Protein backbone atom coordinates (compact mmCIF):
# COMPACT_ATOMS: atom_id res chain seq x y z
CA UNK A 1 0.00 0.00 0.00
CA UNK A 2 1.24 3.47 -0.84
CA UNK A 3 0.74 6.29 1.64
CA UNK A 4 -2.14 7.69 -0.41
CA UNK A 5 -3.88 4.33 -0.50
CA UNK A 6 -3.38 3.91 3.23
CA UNK A 7 -4.88 7.32 3.88
CA UNK A 8 -7.91 6.50 1.74
CA UNK A 9 -8.40 3.16 3.53
CA UNK A 10 -8.31 5.06 6.81
CA UNK A 11 -10.70 7.82 5.81
CA UNK A 12 -13.08 6.45 3.19
CA UNK A 13 -16.51 5.15 4.13
CA UNK A 14 -17.01 3.34 0.86
CA UNK A 15 -14.37 0.83 -0.23
CA UNK A 16 -14.42 -2.59 -1.79
CA UNK A 17 -12.62 -4.50 0.96
CA UNK A 18 -13.35 -7.99 -0.41
CA UNK A 19 -13.17 -8.46 -4.18
CA UNK A 20 -16.38 -9.92 -5.64
CA UNK A 21 -16.36 -13.61 -6.53
CA UNK A 22 -15.69 -14.29 -10.19
CA UNK A 23 -18.58 -15.78 -12.14
CA UNK A 24 -18.35 -19.53 -12.74
CA UNK A 25 -20.58 -22.41 -13.77
CA UNK A 26 -22.34 -23.81 -10.75
CA UNK A 27 -23.89 -26.97 -12.20
CA UNK A 28 -21.07 -29.32 -11.23
CA UNK A 29 -19.77 -27.63 -8.08
CA UNK A 30 -22.57 -25.55 -6.56
CA UNK A 31 -20.63 -24.61 -3.42
CA UNK A 32 -17.00 -23.76 -2.71
CA UNK A 33 -15.56 -21.95 0.28
CA UNK A 34 -12.33 -21.24 2.10
CA UNK A 35 -13.47 -21.68 5.69
CA UNK A 36 -12.78 -23.59 8.90
CA UNK A 37 -9.15 -24.00 7.80
CA UNK A 38 -10.12 -25.90 4.67
CA UNK A 39 -10.95 -25.57 1.05
CA UNK A 40 -14.29 -27.30 1.14
CA UNK A 41 -17.41 -27.63 -0.91
CA UNK A 42 -20.12 -29.67 -2.48
CA UNK A 43 -19.89 -31.46 -5.83
CA UNK A 44 -23.00 -32.73 -7.60
CA UNK A 45 -22.88 -36.40 -8.59
CA UNK A 46 -22.60 -36.90 -12.32
CA UNK A 47 -24.84 -39.96 -12.29
CA UNK A 48 -27.44 -39.43 -9.56
CA UNK A 49 -29.23 -36.09 -9.41
CA UNK A 50 -30.21 -36.70 -5.76
CA UNK A 51 -26.64 -37.29 -4.63
CA UNK A 52 -23.92 -34.81 -3.74
CA UNK A 53 -20.36 -35.28 -2.59
CA UNK A 54 -18.72 -33.27 0.16
CA UNK A 55 -15.04 -32.70 -0.59
CA UNK A 56 -12.36 -30.93 1.41
CA UNK A 57 -8.62 -30.25 1.64
CA UNK A 58 -7.13 -28.95 4.87
CA UNK A 59 -4.82 -25.93 4.89
CA UNK A 60 -1.24 -26.78 5.87
CA UNK A 61 -1.56 -30.57 6.29
CA UNK A 62 -3.28 -31.00 2.90
CA UNK A 63 -5.33 -33.87 4.32
CA UNK A 64 -8.19 -34.51 1.91
CA UNK A 65 -11.46 -36.35 2.01
CA UNK A 66 -14.50 -36.92 -0.16
CA UNK A 67 -17.74 -38.61 0.79
CA UNK A 68 -21.44 -38.43 0.10
CA UNK A 69 -23.39 -36.15 2.38
CA UNK A 70 -24.34 -39.34 4.28
CA UNK A 71 -20.67 -39.98 5.03
CA UNK A 72 -20.29 -42.85 2.53
CA UNK A 73 -16.68 -42.57 1.30
CA UNK A 74 -16.26 -41.67 -2.35
CA UNK A 75 -15.30 -44.70 -4.47
CA UNK A 76 -12.89 -42.58 -6.43
CA UNK A 77 -10.45 -42.17 -3.54
CA UNK A 78 -7.79 -44.75 -4.31
CA UNK A 79 -4.74 -43.24 -2.67
CA UNK A 80 -5.21 -40.03 -4.63
CA UNK A 81 -7.63 -37.10 -4.70
CA UNK A 82 -10.73 -38.12 -6.68
CA UNK A 83 -12.30 -36.28 -9.57
CA UNK A 84 -14.63 -34.45 -7.17
CA UNK A 85 -11.66 -32.96 -5.33
CA UNK A 86 -10.12 -31.94 -8.63
CA UNK A 87 -13.38 -30.30 -9.68
CA UNK A 88 -13.58 -28.54 -6.30
CA UNK A 89 -10.06 -27.12 -6.68
CA UNK A 90 -10.72 -26.13 -10.32
CA UNK A 91 -13.79 -24.16 -9.36
CA UNK A 92 -12.14 -22.59 -6.31
CA UNK A 93 -9.40 -21.28 -8.60
CA UNK A 94 -12.01 -19.75 -10.90
CA UNK A 95 -14.01 -18.24 -8.06
CA UNK A 96 -11.17 -16.81 -5.95
CA UNK A 97 -8.11 -16.89 -8.22
CA UNK A 98 -5.07 -19.17 -7.80
CA UNK A 99 -3.17 -16.94 -5.44
CA UNK A 100 -5.79 -16.64 -2.64
CA UNK A 101 -6.52 -20.39 -2.78
CA UNK A 102 -2.83 -21.31 -2.63
CA UNK A 103 -2.19 -18.83 0.17
CA UNK A 104 -5.11 -20.20 2.20
CA UNK A 105 -4.01 -23.82 1.74
CA UNK A 106 -0.36 -22.84 2.27
CA UNK A 107 0.81 -24.26 -1.03
CA UNK A 108 3.88 -22.86 -2.72
CA UNK A 109 2.77 -22.19 -6.28
CA UNK A 110 5.12 -20.68 -8.76
CA UNK A 111 3.96 -19.86 -12.25
CA UNK A 112 1.93 -22.19 -14.39
CA UNK A 113 -0.71 -23.35 -11.93
CA UNK A 114 -4.14 -22.92 -13.47
CA UNK A 115 -6.03 -26.08 -12.58
CA UNK A 116 -6.92 -28.13 -9.54
CA UNK A 117 -4.71 -30.99 -10.79
CA UNK A 118 -1.71 -28.66 -11.01
CA UNK A 119 -2.48 -27.34 -7.53
CA UNK A 120 -2.60 -30.89 -6.09
CA UNK A 121 0.70 -31.63 -7.87
CA UNK A 122 2.33 -28.94 -5.69
CA UNK A 123 1.03 -30.51 -2.48
CA UNK A 124 1.87 -33.72 -0.67
CA UNK A 125 -1.75 -34.67 -0.06
CA UNK A 126 -2.83 -37.55 2.10
CA UNK A 127 -6.21 -39.04 2.81
CA UNK A 128 -7.79 -38.52 6.19
CA UNK A 129 -11.54 -38.97 6.74
CA UNK A 130 -13.46 -35.99 8.07
CA UNK A 131 -17.19 -35.67 8.72
CA UNK A 132 -19.31 -34.29 5.88
CA UNK A 133 -22.06 -32.95 8.11
CA UNK A 134 -20.53 -29.57 8.93
CA UNK A 135 -19.77 -28.69 5.32
CA UNK A 136 -23.10 -29.99 4.11
CA UNK A 137 -24.99 -27.96 6.66
CA UNK A 138 -23.00 -24.87 5.66
CA UNK A 139 -24.09 -25.55 2.09
CA UNK A 140 -27.74 -25.80 3.14
CA UNK A 141 -27.35 -22.58 5.11
CA UNK A 142 -25.87 -21.00 1.96
CA UNK A 143 -28.84 -22.17 -0.12
CA UNK A 144 -31.27 -20.84 2.47
CA UNK A 145 -30.39 -17.27 1.39
CA UNK A 146 -32.31 -17.95 -1.81
CA UNK A 147 -35.43 -18.65 0.25
CA UNK A 148 -35.44 -15.17 1.79
CA UNK A 149 -38.25 -13.14 0.18
CA UNK A 150 -37.56 -10.10 -2.02
CA UNK A 151 -37.82 -6.78 -0.23
CA UNK A 152 -39.30 -3.51 -1.45
CA UNK A 153 -38.16 -1.47 1.53
CA UNK A 154 -34.84 0.28 1.02
CA UNK A 155 -31.77 -1.14 2.77
CA UNK A 156 -29.86 2.11 3.40
CA UNK A 157 -26.86 0.22 4.80
CA UNK A 158 -26.12 -1.16 1.33
CA UNK A 159 -24.99 2.38 0.41
CA UNK A 160 -21.68 1.21 1.91
CA UNK A 161 -21.56 -1.68 -0.55
CA UNK A 162 -21.64 -0.45 -4.16
CA UNK A 163 -21.65 -3.06 -6.90
CA UNK A 164 -18.46 -3.04 -8.89
CA UNK A 165 -17.02 -5.17 -11.62
CA UNK A 166 -14.02 -7.30 -10.63
CA UNK A 167 -11.66 -4.87 -12.36
CA UNK A 168 -11.31 -1.16 -11.51
Amino acid at each position, binding site marked *: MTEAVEASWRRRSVLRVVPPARARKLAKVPFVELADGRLQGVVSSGSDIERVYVSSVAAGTHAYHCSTNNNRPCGGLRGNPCKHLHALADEAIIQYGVEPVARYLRVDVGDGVDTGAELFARMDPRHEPSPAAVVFSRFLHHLAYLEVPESTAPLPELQWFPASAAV*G
Partner: protein
Amino acid sequence: MLAHQVTRLRTDVPAGLTEALDVVAGFDAVLTRGFARIGEEDAAALAALADAVAGTPLGARVAEAVGKVTAGSVAEEHLAVLAGARSALLGAAHDALLGQLDGVLGRDRSPWPGAAAGATEVSPARLAARAWLHEVALTGWRGVDHELVSGAAAPVEDALAEPGSRRLAVLLDGLAAELRACVPVAAMPQAPVRRWADLWARGMLLTQGAPAGPAADVELVSGRLLPLGVDVHEHDTAVQVGLHAVLEPAGGGTPRLVRATVGAAKVATIVGPAIWRLFPGQPTLLRALAGRRAVTVTDLPLHGGDLRWDDTRAELGEPTDPFATARVLLASATAASTPPLDRHPAAIAEPVLVEGAAVRDDGGLVLDLDGERVPVTVDRLPASGPLTRGRVAAATACLGLLRWDDGRWLLQPLGVRFTSKRQVAEAHNGDWADGVTDPKIAKADAKAGDAVAVLRERAGRLLRR
Protein backbone atom coordinates in the same frame (compact mmCIF):
# COMPACT_ATOMS: atom_id res chain seq x y z
CA MET B 1 -23.90 20.55 -13.65
CA LEU B 2 -21.66 23.46 -14.61
CA ALA B 3 -18.06 24.42 -13.95
CA HIS B 4 -18.92 27.27 -11.58
CA GLN B 5 -21.07 24.89 -9.53
CA VAL B 6 -18.16 22.49 -9.18
CA THR B 7 -15.97 25.42 -8.12
CA ARG B 8 -18.43 26.31 -5.37
CA LEU B 9 -18.64 22.70 -4.21
CA ARG B 10 -14.88 22.60 -3.96
CA THR B 11 -14.40 25.92 -2.23
CA ASP B 12 -17.47 26.39 0.02
CA VAL B 13 -16.57 23.69 2.52
CA PRO B 14 -19.19 23.71 5.30
CA ALA B 15 -17.98 25.30 8.53
CA GLY B 16 -16.98 22.78 11.17
CA LEU B 17 -16.88 19.81 8.79
CA THR B 18 -13.15 19.17 9.17
CA GLU B 19 -13.34 19.46 12.95
CA ALA B 20 -16.31 17.07 13.12
CA LEU B 21 -14.50 14.50 11.00
CA ASP B 22 -11.41 14.80 13.22
CA VAL B 23 -13.54 13.95 16.25
CA VAL B 24 -14.98 10.98 14.36
CA ALA B 25 -11.45 9.84 13.42
CA GLY B 26 -10.48 9.96 17.10
CA PHE B 27 -13.41 7.73 18.01
CA ASP B 28 -12.55 5.36 15.15
CA ALA B 29 -9.03 4.98 16.56
CA VAL B 30 -10.48 3.96 19.94
CA LEU B 31 -12.63 1.34 18.22
CA THR B 32 -9.57 0.08 16.38
CA ARG B 33 -7.62 -0.44 19.61
CA GLY B 34 -10.65 -1.70 21.53
CA PHE B 35 -12.65 -0.39 24.49
CA ALA B 36 -11.32 -3.04 26.88
CA ARG B 37 -8.26 -0.94 27.68
CA ILE B 38 -8.82 2.81 27.53
CA GLY B 39 -5.51 4.63 27.40
CA GLU B 40 -4.80 8.35 27.61
CA GLU B 41 -5.20 8.89 23.90
CA ASP B 42 -8.52 7.05 23.93
CA ALA B 43 -9.80 9.05 26.87
CA ALA B 44 -8.91 12.29 25.06
CA ALA B 45 -10.70 11.15 21.89
CA LEU B 46 -13.83 10.23 23.83
CA ALA B 47 -13.74 13.52 25.74
CA ALA B 48 -13.58 15.30 22.37
CA LEU B 49 -16.66 13.38 21.26
CA ALA B 50 -18.53 14.46 24.39
CA ASP B 51 -17.43 18.08 23.83
CA ALA B 52 -18.61 18.00 20.22
CA VAL B 53 -22.18 17.16 21.21
CA ALA B 54 -22.17 19.08 24.53
CA GLY B 55 -24.63 21.71 23.33
CA THR B 56 -27.14 19.20 21.96
CA PRO B 57 -29.88 17.13 23.62
CA LEU B 58 -27.41 14.23 23.58
CA GLY B 59 -24.88 16.18 25.66
CA ALA B 60 -25.59 14.92 29.18
CA ARG B 61 -25.98 11.26 28.22
CA VAL B 62 -22.83 11.24 26.12
CA ALA B 63 -20.83 12.92 28.88
CA GLU B 64 -22.06 10.29 31.33
CA ALA B 65 -21.28 7.40 28.94
CA VAL B 66 -17.79 8.77 28.25
CA GLY B 67 -17.19 9.05 31.99
CA LYS B 68 -18.22 5.44 32.61
CA VAL B 69 -16.33 4.01 29.65
CA THR B 70 -13.17 5.92 30.53
CA ALA B 71 -13.46 4.58 34.08
CA GLY B 72 -13.51 1.05 32.66
CA SER B 73 -17.25 0.29 32.78
CA VAL B 74 -18.03 -0.46 29.15
CA ALA B 75 -21.68 -1.52 29.15
CA GLU B 76 -23.72 -2.00 25.99
CA GLU B 77 -25.91 1.00 26.81
CA HIS B 78 -22.87 3.28 27.06
CA LEU B 79 -21.52 2.08 23.73
CA ALA B 80 -24.94 2.64 22.18
CA VAL B 81 -24.87 6.24 23.39
CA LEU B 82 -21.37 6.72 21.93
CA ALA B 83 -22.53 5.21 18.64
CA GLY B 84 -25.38 7.70 18.73
CA ALA B 85 -22.98 10.62 19.27
CA ARG B 86 -20.77 9.54 16.38
CA SER B 87 -23.83 9.10 14.16
CA ALA B 88 -25.13 12.53 15.15
CA LEU B 89 -21.86 14.17 14.09
CA LEU B 90 -21.92 12.41 10.72
CA GLY B 91 -25.63 13.16 10.38
CA ALA B 92 -24.80 16.83 10.84
CA ALA B 93 -22.01 16.50 8.27
CA HIS B 94 -24.56 14.97 5.89
CA ASP B 95 -26.96 17.86 6.43
CA ALA B 96 -24.26 20.47 5.92
CA LEU B 97 -22.94 18.84 2.74
CA LEU B 98 -26.39 18.31 1.28
CA GLY B 99 -27.33 21.88 2.16
CA GLN B 100 -24.23 23.08 0.34
CA LEU B 101 -25.09 20.92 -2.66
CA ASP B 102 -28.72 22.05 -2.75
CA GLY B 103 -27.57 25.65 -2.65
CA VAL B 104 -25.15 25.13 -5.50
CA LEU B 105 -27.59 23.18 -7.68
CA GLY B 106 -30.59 25.33 -6.74
CA ARG B 107 -32.37 22.16 -5.67
CA ASP B 108 -35.52 22.43 -3.54
CA ARG B 109 -35.81 19.91 -0.76
CA SER B 110 -38.91 19.32 1.30
CA PRO B 111 -38.28 19.19 5.04
CA TRP B 112 -38.57 15.92 6.93
CA PRO B 113 -42.23 15.51 7.85
CA GLY B 114 -42.49 15.66 11.61
CA ALA B 115 -41.60 13.15 14.26
CA ALA B 116 -40.57 9.60 13.55
CA ALA B 117 -42.62 6.63 14.66
CA GLY B 118 -42.03 5.29 18.16
CA ALA B 119 -39.30 2.76 18.78
CA THR B 120 -40.18 -0.82 18.02
CA GLU B 121 -39.69 -3.69 20.42
CA VAL B 122 -36.19 -5.06 20.81
CA SER B 123 -36.25 -8.62 19.50
CA PRO B 124 -33.95 -11.50 20.52
CA ALA B 125 -32.07 -11.14 17.20
CA ARG B 126 -31.35 -7.50 17.97
CA LEU B 127 -30.21 -8.31 21.49
CA ALA B 128 -27.84 -10.96 20.14
CA ALA B 129 -26.52 -8.55 17.52
CA ARG B 130 -25.97 -5.90 20.17
CA ALA B 131 -24.03 -8.36 22.32
CA TRP B 132 -21.81 -9.21 19.34
CA LEU B 133 -21.18 -5.54 18.54
CA HIS B 134 -20.33 -4.98 22.20
CA GLU B 135 -17.81 -7.82 22.09
CA VAL B 136 -16.31 -6.42 18.89
CA ALA B 137 -15.95 -2.97 20.45
CA LEU B 138 -14.24 -4.36 23.55
CA THR B 139 -11.82 -6.33 21.39
CA GLY B 140 -11.13 -3.62 18.80
CA TRP B 141 -10.61 -4.27 15.09
CA ARG B 142 -6.97 -5.17 15.63
CA GLY B 143 -7.88 -7.99 17.98
CA VAL B 144 -10.64 -9.56 15.90
CA ASP B 145 -10.09 -13.29 15.31
CA HIS B 146 -12.01 -15.99 13.47
CA GLU B 147 -13.87 -17.05 16.58
CA LEU B 148 -15.24 -13.56 17.16
CA VAL B 149 -16.22 -13.22 13.50
CA SER B 150 -18.06 -16.57 13.63
CA GLY B 151 -20.09 -15.14 16.49
CA ALA B 152 -21.96 -12.96 13.98
CA ALA B 153 -23.49 -15.97 12.22
CA ALA B 154 -26.27 -16.63 14.74
CA PRO B 155 -27.54 -13.03 15.02
CA VAL B 156 -27.40 -12.72 11.20
CA GLU B 157 -29.50 -15.84 10.77
CA ASP B 158 -32.03 -14.73 13.38
CA ALA B 159 -32.23 -11.19 12.02
CA LEU B 160 -32.78 -12.49 8.47
CA ALA B 161 -35.74 -14.48 9.73
CA GLU B 162 -37.36 -11.31 11.16
CA PRO B 163 -38.81 -9.10 8.43
CA GLY B 164 -38.26 -6.00 10.59
CA SER B 165 -34.55 -6.74 11.08
CA ARG B 166 -33.50 -7.20 7.45
CA ARG B 167 -31.36 -4.07 7.51
CA LEU B 168 -29.47 -5.30 10.55
CA ALA B 169 -28.94 -8.75 9.02
CA VAL B 170 -27.60 -7.29 5.77
CA LEU B 171 -25.26 -4.95 7.61
CA LEU B 172 -23.84 -7.58 9.99
CA ASP B 173 -23.36 -10.13 7.22
CA GLY B 174 -21.47 -7.62 5.08
CA LEU B 175 -19.28 -6.46 7.97
CA ALA B 176 -18.54 -10.01 9.17
CA ALA B 177 -17.50 -11.11 5.66
CA GLU B 178 -15.00 -8.25 5.47
CA LEU B 179 -13.60 -8.99 8.91
CA ARG B 180 -13.27 -12.69 8.03
CA ALA B 181 -11.29 -11.81 4.91
CA CYS B 182 -9.05 -9.41 6.85
CA VAL B 183 -8.13 -11.52 9.90
CA PRO B 184 -5.55 -10.92 11.31
CA VAL B 185 -6.41 -7.23 11.06
CA ALA B 186 -3.26 -6.25 12.96
CA ALA B 187 -1.24 -7.51 9.98
CA MET B 188 -3.00 -5.15 7.54
CA PRO B 189 -0.98 -2.09 6.53
CA GLN B 190 -4.15 -0.06 7.13
CA ALA B 191 -7.57 -1.29 8.21
CA PRO B 192 -10.65 0.51 6.78
CA VAL B 193 -11.34 2.07 10.17
CA ARG B 194 -13.77 4.82 9.13
CA ARG B 195 -15.81 2.34 7.14
CA TRP B 196 -15.96 -0.34 9.82
CA ALA B 197 -16.79 2.21 12.51
CA ASP B 198 -19.62 3.50 10.26
CA LEU B 199 -21.01 -0.01 10.01
CA TRP B 200 -20.49 -0.73 13.70
CA ALA B 201 -22.25 2.47 14.77
CA ARG B 202 -25.13 1.96 12.35
CA GLY B 203 -25.46 -1.62 13.56
CA MET B 204 -25.60 -0.39 17.16
CA LEU B 205 -28.40 2.05 16.25
CA LEU B 206 -30.34 -0.63 14.39
CA THR B 207 -30.21 -2.93 17.42
CA GLN B 208 -31.98 -0.30 19.53
CA GLY B 209 -35.30 -1.11 17.96
CA ALA B 210 -35.13 2.32 16.35
CA PRO B 211 -37.96 3.20 13.98
CA ALA B 212 -37.13 2.05 10.48
CA GLY B 213 -39.03 4.86 8.84
CA PRO B 214 -41.73 7.46 9.27
CA ALA B 215 -44.58 4.99 9.56
CA ALA B 216 -46.99 7.76 10.43
CA ASP B 217 -45.93 9.99 7.58
CA VAL B 218 -46.47 7.82 4.54
CA GLU B 219 -48.36 9.41 1.70
CA LEU B 220 -49.86 7.64 -1.29
CA VAL B 221 -48.76 9.00 -4.65
CA SER B 222 -49.90 8.48 -8.22
CA GLY B 223 -48.42 9.73 -11.44
CA ARG B 224 -45.90 9.11 -14.14
CA LEU B 225 -42.43 7.91 -13.19
CA LEU B 226 -39.67 8.98 -15.58
CA PRO B 227 -36.39 7.08 -15.13
CA LEU B 228 -33.09 8.88 -14.60
CA GLY B 229 -30.79 6.01 -13.73
CA VAL B 230 -30.20 2.81 -11.83
CA ASP B 231 -27.88 2.31 -8.88
CA VAL B 232 -26.84 -1.21 -7.84
CA HIS B 233 -25.49 -2.23 -4.44
CA GLU B 234 -24.35 -5.65 -3.37
CA HIS B 235 -22.23 -7.74 -1.10
CA ASP B 236 -21.92 -11.50 -0.99
CA THR B 237 -25.38 -12.15 0.42
CA ALA B 238 -27.47 -9.13 -0.55
CA VAL B 239 -28.25 -7.05 -3.60
CA GLN B 240 -30.31 -3.90 -4.02
CA VAL B 241 -31.40 -2.13 -7.19
CA GLY B 242 -32.52 1.48 -6.92
CA LEU B 243 -34.23 3.42 -9.67
CA HIS B 244 -33.76 7.18 -9.43
CA ALA B 245 -36.65 8.85 -11.20
CA VAL B 246 -38.75 11.97 -11.51
CA LEU B 247 -42.37 11.55 -10.47
CA GLU B 248 -44.84 13.75 -12.35
CA PRO B 249 -47.81 13.73 -9.98
CA ALA B 250 -51.18 12.84 -11.51
CA GLY B 251 -53.25 16.01 -11.78
CA GLY B 252 -50.20 18.27 -12.05
CA GLY B 253 -48.00 19.83 -9.41
CA THR B 254 -44.27 20.06 -8.91
CA PRO B 255 -42.32 17.04 -10.14
CA ARG B 256 -40.57 15.12 -7.38
CA LEU B 257 -37.24 13.31 -7.20
CA VAL B 258 -37.92 9.79 -5.95
CA ARG B 259 -36.33 6.35 -5.70
CA ALA B 260 -37.85 2.91 -6.10
CA THR B 261 -35.71 0.27 -4.45
CA VAL B 262 -35.96 -3.50 -4.45
CA GLY B 263 -33.66 -5.92 -2.68
CA ALA B 264 -32.97 -9.64 -2.56
CA ALA B 265 -30.80 -12.04 -0.63
CA LYS B 266 -28.20 -13.90 -2.66
CA VAL B 267 -24.97 -15.86 -2.39
CA ALA B 268 -21.46 -14.88 -3.45
CA THR B 269 -21.54 -16.87 -6.69
CA ILE B 270 -24.52 -14.92 -8.05
CA VAL B 271 -22.74 -11.99 -9.65
CA GLY B 272 -22.92 -9.83 -12.76
CA PRO B 273 -26.06 -10.00 -14.93
CA ALA B 274 -27.30 -13.02 -12.91
CA ILE B 275 -28.53 -10.65 -10.18
CA TRP B 276 -31.49 -9.56 -12.31
CA ARG B 277 -32.94 -13.06 -11.99
CA LEU B 278 -33.34 -12.53 -8.26
CA PHE B 279 -36.38 -10.29 -8.78
CA PRO B 280 -39.07 -12.51 -10.28
CA GLY B 281 -41.71 -10.53 -8.35
CA GLN B 282 -40.96 -7.22 -10.10
CA PRO B 283 -41.46 -7.82 -13.85
CA THR B 284 -42.81 -4.34 -14.60
CA LEU B 285 -39.96 -2.62 -12.79
CA LEU B 286 -37.32 -4.73 -14.58
CA ARG B 287 -38.84 -4.02 -17.99
CA ALA B 288 -39.00 -0.33 -17.20
CA LEU B 289 -35.31 -0.33 -16.21
CA ALA B 290 -34.27 -2.26 -19.29
CA GLY B 291 -36.28 -0.17 -21.73
CA ARG B 292 -35.82 3.16 -19.85
CA ARG B 293 -39.58 3.29 -19.99
CA ALA B 294 -42.00 5.49 -18.13
CA VAL B 295 -44.21 3.81 -15.55
CA THR B 296 -47.61 4.97 -14.42
CA VAL B 297 -48.02 4.26 -10.72
CA THR B 298 -51.23 4.34 -8.73
CA ASP B 299 -51.40 4.84 -4.97
CA LEU B 300 -47.83 3.83 -4.19
CA PRO B 301 -46.70 4.57 -0.61
CA LEU B 302 -43.96 7.21 -0.50
CA HIS B 303 -41.69 7.52 2.57
CA GLY B 304 -39.58 10.66 2.19
CA GLY B 305 -38.09 10.11 -1.27
CA ASP B 306 -38.52 6.34 -1.18
CA LEU B 307 -41.37 4.75 -3.11
CA ARG B 308 -42.44 1.44 -1.59
CA TRP B 309 -42.57 -0.50 -4.82
CA ASP B 310 -45.60 -2.65 -5.66
CA ASP B 311 -45.41 -4.12 -9.13
CA THR B 312 -49.17 -4.63 -9.25
CA ARG B 313 -49.72 -0.85 -8.99
CA ALA B 314 -47.36 -0.07 -11.85
CA GLU B 315 -48.18 0.06 -15.52
CA LEU B 316 -45.49 0.15 -18.17
CA GLY B 317 -45.46 3.23 -20.41
CA GLU B 318 -43.54 4.43 -23.44
CA PRO B 319 -39.72 4.47 -23.81
CA THR B 320 -38.15 7.70 -22.56
CA ASP B 321 -34.85 9.51 -22.87
CA PRO B 322 -33.33 9.84 -19.37
CA PHE B 323 -31.02 12.61 -20.61
CA ALA B 324 -34.04 14.61 -21.76
CA THR B 325 -35.82 13.93 -18.46
CA ALA B 326 -32.80 15.27 -16.59
CA ARG B 327 -32.41 18.28 -18.87
CA VAL B 328 -36.06 19.29 -18.67
CA LEU B 329 -37.17 18.25 -15.18
CA LEU B 330 -34.18 17.92 -12.85
CA ALA B 331 -33.85 21.64 -12.19
CA SER B 332 -37.49 22.04 -11.15
CA ALA B 333 -38.00 18.76 -9.29
CA THR B 334 -38.29 18.80 -5.51
CA ALA B 335 -36.08 16.39 -3.58
CA ALA B 336 -36.99 14.76 -0.28
CA SER B 337 -35.14 14.73 3.01
CA THR B 338 -33.32 11.63 4.22
CA PRO B 339 -34.81 9.90 7.29
CA PRO B 340 -32.90 11.33 10.30
CA LEU B 341 -31.33 8.05 11.42
CA ASP B 342 -30.09 7.28 7.89
CA ARG B 343 -28.18 10.54 7.55
CA HIS B 344 -24.52 10.04 6.86
CA PRO B 345 -22.34 11.47 4.07
CA ALA B 346 -22.31 7.99 2.47
CA ALA B 347 -26.10 8.29 1.98
CA ILE B 348 -25.73 11.33 -0.30
CA ALA B 349 -26.66 10.30 -3.85
CA GLU B 350 -28.00 13.26 -5.80
CA PRO B 351 -28.88 12.84 -9.48
CA VAL B 352 -27.10 15.26 -11.80
CA LEU B 353 -26.59 15.63 -15.53
CA VAL B 354 -23.14 16.54 -16.84
CA GLU B 355 -22.80 17.69 -20.43
CA GLY B 356 -19.90 19.30 -22.20
CA ALA B 357 -17.24 17.80 -19.95
CA ALA B 358 -14.12 16.07 -21.15
CA VAL B 359 -13.19 12.82 -19.43
CA ARG B 360 -9.50 12.56 -18.61
CA ASP B 361 -7.63 9.48 -17.55
CA ASP B 362 -4.83 10.26 -15.14
CA GLY B 363 -4.76 6.95 -13.32
CA GLY B 364 -8.39 7.36 -12.33
CA LEU B 365 -11.05 8.93 -14.54
CA VAL B 366 -11.77 12.60 -13.99
CA LEU B 367 -14.53 14.76 -15.46
CA ASP B 368 -13.04 18.02 -16.63
CA LEU B 369 -15.51 20.91 -16.80
CA ASP B 370 -13.60 23.94 -18.07
CA GLY B 371 -10.69 23.06 -15.84
CA GLU B 372 -12.81 22.10 -12.81
CA ARG B 373 -12.31 18.44 -12.09
CA VAL B 374 -14.62 15.89 -10.52
CA PRO B 375 -13.26 12.37 -9.92
CA VAL B 376 -15.38 9.57 -11.38
CA THR B 377 -16.06 6.53 -9.19
CA VAL B 378 -14.77 3.85 -11.56
CA ASP B 379 -15.07 1.39 -8.67
CA ARG B 380 -18.85 1.80 -8.84
CA LEU B 381 -19.48 0.36 -12.30
CA PRO B 382 -21.57 -2.78 -11.76
CA ALA B 383 -20.87 -5.95 -13.76
CA SER B 384 -24.63 -6.35 -14.13
CA GLY B 385 -24.81 -3.62 -16.77
CA PRO B 386 -23.03 -2.35 -19.87
CA LEU B 387 -21.33 0.65 -18.26
CA THR B 388 -17.58 0.12 -18.46
CA ARG B 389 -14.59 2.27 -17.74
CA GLY B 390 -13.93 2.56 -21.46
CA ARG B 391 -17.44 3.80 -22.18
CA VAL B 392 -17.29 6.31 -19.35
CA ALA B 393 -13.93 7.51 -20.69
CA ALA B 394 -15.57 8.06 -24.10
CA ALA B 395 -18.63 9.81 -22.63
CA THR B 396 -19.97 13.02 -24.13
CA ALA B 397 -22.79 13.22 -21.58
CA CYS B 398 -23.18 11.55 -18.22
CA LEU B 399 -26.12 11.04 -15.91
CA GLY B 400 -24.91 10.24 -12.46
CA LEU B 401 -25.11 10.60 -8.72
CA LEU B 402 -23.05 13.11 -6.81
CA ARG B 403 -21.47 11.39 -3.84
CA TRP B 404 -19.18 12.56 -1.09
CA ASP B 405 -16.41 10.56 0.56
CA ASP B 406 -13.02 11.28 2.13
CA GLY B 407 -13.30 15.04 1.84
CA ARG B 408 -14.35 15.33 -1.79
CA TRP B 409 -17.27 15.23 -4.16
CA LEU B 410 -17.34 12.37 -6.65
CA LEU B 411 -19.47 11.53 -9.64
CA GLN B 412 -20.92 8.02 -9.90
CA PRO B 413 -22.05 7.42 -13.50
CA LEU B 414 -25.43 5.72 -13.94
CA GLY B 415 -25.66 6.19 -17.69
CA VAL B 416 -23.54 7.71 -20.44
CA ARG B 417 -23.86 8.84 -24.02
CA PHE B 418 -20.62 7.98 -25.77
CA THR B 419 -19.07 7.76 -29.18
CA SER B 420 -17.96 4.40 -30.48
CA LYS B 421 -16.78 3.84 -34.05
CA ARG B 422 -18.16 7.29 -34.94
CA GLN B 423 -21.60 6.24 -33.78
CA VAL B 424 -23.36 7.79 -30.81
CA ALA B 425 -24.52 5.15 -28.35
CA GLU B 426 -25.82 5.00 -24.79
CA ALA B 427 -25.17 2.66 -21.91
CA HIS B 428 -27.18 2.64 -18.68
CA ASN B 429 -26.83 0.50 -15.56
CA GLY B 430 -30.31 -0.97 -15.94
CA ASP B 431 -30.02 -1.94 -19.62
CA TRP B 432 -29.68 -5.68 -18.92
CA ALA B 433 -32.44 -5.88 -16.30
CA ASP B 434 -34.66 -7.86 -18.66
CA GLY B 435 -31.83 -9.91 -20.22
CA VAL B 436 -28.33 -9.13 -21.47
CA THR B 437 -28.49 -7.14 -24.71
CA ASP B 438 -24.79 -7.31 -25.60
CA PRO B 439 -24.43 -10.43 -27.81
CA LYS B 440 -20.89 -11.19 -26.60
CA ILE B 441 -21.77 -10.97 -22.92
CA ALA B 442 -25.08 -12.79 -23.50
CA LYS B 443 -23.20 -15.70 -25.05
CA ALA B 444 -20.77 -15.93 -22.14
CA ASP B 445 -23.69 -15.64 -19.73
CA ALA B 446 -25.60 -18.44 -21.47
CA LYS B 447 -22.50 -20.63 -21.46
CA ALA B 448 -22.05 -20.17 -17.71
CA GLY B 449 -25.65 -21.24 -17.16
CA ASP B 450 -28.28 -19.72 -14.95
CA ALA B 451 -26.64 -19.57 -11.50
CA VAL B 452 -29.88 -18.69 -9.77
CA ALA B 453 -31.77 -21.59 -11.39
CA VAL B 454 -28.99 -24.09 -10.59
CA LEU B 455 -28.94 -23.10 -6.92
CA ARG B 456 -32.73 -22.99 -6.66
CA GLU B 457 -32.86 -26.51 -8.09
CA ARG B 458 -30.28 -27.68 -5.55
CA ALA B 459 -32.19 -25.93 -2.77
CA GLY B 460 -35.46 -27.51 -3.87
CA ARG B 461 -33.94 -30.97 -3.89
CA LEU B 462 -31.78 -30.78 -0.76
CA LEU B 463 -33.28 -28.24 1.63
CA ARG B 464 -36.64 -29.79 2.42
CA ARG B 465 -35.63 -33.33 3.29
